[in-house]
């Protein structure tokens, strides 16, 4: 007889094995470079192994939590919004989700501080602490608003069933045009800001929201219509950050 505890242990050890497999490549790459290229012993091997163990446990717990918490709530809320039938509330929710998850994103805080430093050295703003803080906060707000708008556009696209490629092409055209006018100092930061906005918690939630919406609305296909929200969230910040650089 298989007891529930046994089953749980079995399940957990299987998940643990998967995490080990996911992380093995990084460990191999780092070990190979250290031993073969630099020809140096690995410093603090015990610490490295202990850290790797934590990463493995963390990844296992995260994936489990994802399946139990983030995915179900994202999909059930999408379903409830669809059956409620109020587009206004859905749009508000989409904006709040995009804005709220981005404004506190540590990677974004880091990159906007960096951008403020670039702007100060480039003479775009005065080199004082207050000016740089204001510039960095402004940039952070700009990106958060642009991600909020991106999720809104993405959700409306799912409701209307517009093909994604035309919207993305329009976005690319926007990026290219803005690149021609934006100050060169801001371009690298703007391009990078598209990549940093989507965090580890936002991605599963937003994906579940999109897929849930597309499967609740009749005539939408979760595969072709459900994905794409993240794509908008990584495109609009580029345009908005370049606009921010031009206006200031």
């Amino acid at each position, binding site marked *: 007889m298989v007891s529930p505890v046994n089953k749980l242990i079995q399940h957990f050890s299987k998940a643990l094995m998967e995490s080990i497999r996911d992380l093995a*490549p*990084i460990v*191999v790459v*780092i070990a190979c*470079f250290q031993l073969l290229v630099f020809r140096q012993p690995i410093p603090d091997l015990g*610490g*490295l192994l*202990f*850290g*790797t*163990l*934590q*990463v*493995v446990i*963390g*990844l*296992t*717990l*995260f994936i*489990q*939590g*994802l399946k*139990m*918490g*983030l995915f*179900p*709530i994202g999909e*059930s*809320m999408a379903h*409830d919004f669809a059956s*409620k039938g109020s587009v206004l*509330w859905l749009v508000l929710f989409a904006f709040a*989700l995009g804005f*709220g998850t981005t404004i506190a994103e*540590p*990677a974004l805080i880091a990159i906007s501080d960096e951008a403020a*430093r*670039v702007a100060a050295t*480039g003479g775009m703003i005065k080199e004082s602490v207050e000016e740089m803080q204001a510039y960095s906060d402004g940039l952070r707000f700009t990106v958060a608003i642009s991600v909020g708008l991106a999720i809104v556009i993405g959700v409306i696209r799912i409701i209307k069933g517009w093909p994604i490629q035309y919207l993305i*092409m329009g976005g*690319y055209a926007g*990026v290219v045009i803005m690149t021609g006018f934006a100050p060169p100092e801001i371009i*690298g930061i703007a*391009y990078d800001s*598209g990549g*940093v906005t*989507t*965090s*580890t*918690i936002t991605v*599963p939630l937003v*994906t579940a929201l999109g897929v849930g919406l597309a499967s609740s609305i009749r005539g939408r296909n979760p*595969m*072709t*219509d459900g*994905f*794409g929200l*993240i*794509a908008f969230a*990584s495109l609009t910040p580029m345009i908005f950050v370049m606009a921010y650089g031009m206006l200031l």
Partner: protein
Amino acid sequence: MMAWLMDFLDTLLATITDVLPIAAILFGFQLFVLRKNIRNLRQVLTGFVLVLLGLAFFLEGLEQALFPLGKLMAEQLTAPEFLGISGTAGDFESHWTNYLWVYLFAFAIGLSTTIAEPSLIAVAIKANQVSGGTVGTWGLRIAVAIGVAIGISLGAYRIVTGTPLHYYIITGYVVVLIQTVFCPKAIIALAYDSGGVTTSTVTVPLVAALGLGLSSTIPGRNPMLDGFGLIAFASLFPIMSVMGYAQLSERLARRAKTTQMRDKKCISN
């Protein structure tokens, strides 16, 4: 042990502050707008706790073990002595073979960190579910990882040669547009998504260290201007590789089908 516990609690606290606004939005809308009880509330809450604990362990472990070593390597690889750049700018020859190890490292780090990226795992799980198994979790993840690896190596090459970033990005856009026309319609949205998904917790810190190291070592590069842009490469190239993967598997499936039909014809004849 005590020191570890304090570190861990710090990371846990930081993770909780990150998640709090998201949880507030979710539960706020659920209670006040949708006015519905959350289905399987206990399971969902357990899931949230697991996500918090998992992320805290994950980040703490990376911070303790892999990031210091990875960043140290990026610094060593881009050190002037390693690259054979002497102090005087005059005898600097930007011969690309000097940088072979840098490109190889960029490729390997891009590939391996992407495989471990939790948000990509999440999207791969969902895509596998939604497509009814047609999109394999590993197929998607490896396709994305190859895209990131190529992107970061090319990004490193750009920093070494000093060509403007937007030439590459705009060319990349054109390739993406052409591929969009020819690739199977079902994969387009997923492919576009995979660009934004790839660069998060694991990839960004290591890649940023590489970009910063390269742009501060190579004469004539300004870390402020040239250090950026690697992330942009890492989010553009997976779009191409995922569409390429879809095109390839479609072609293979079609060829398999035609050979199958030919075989059948032979048999029936």
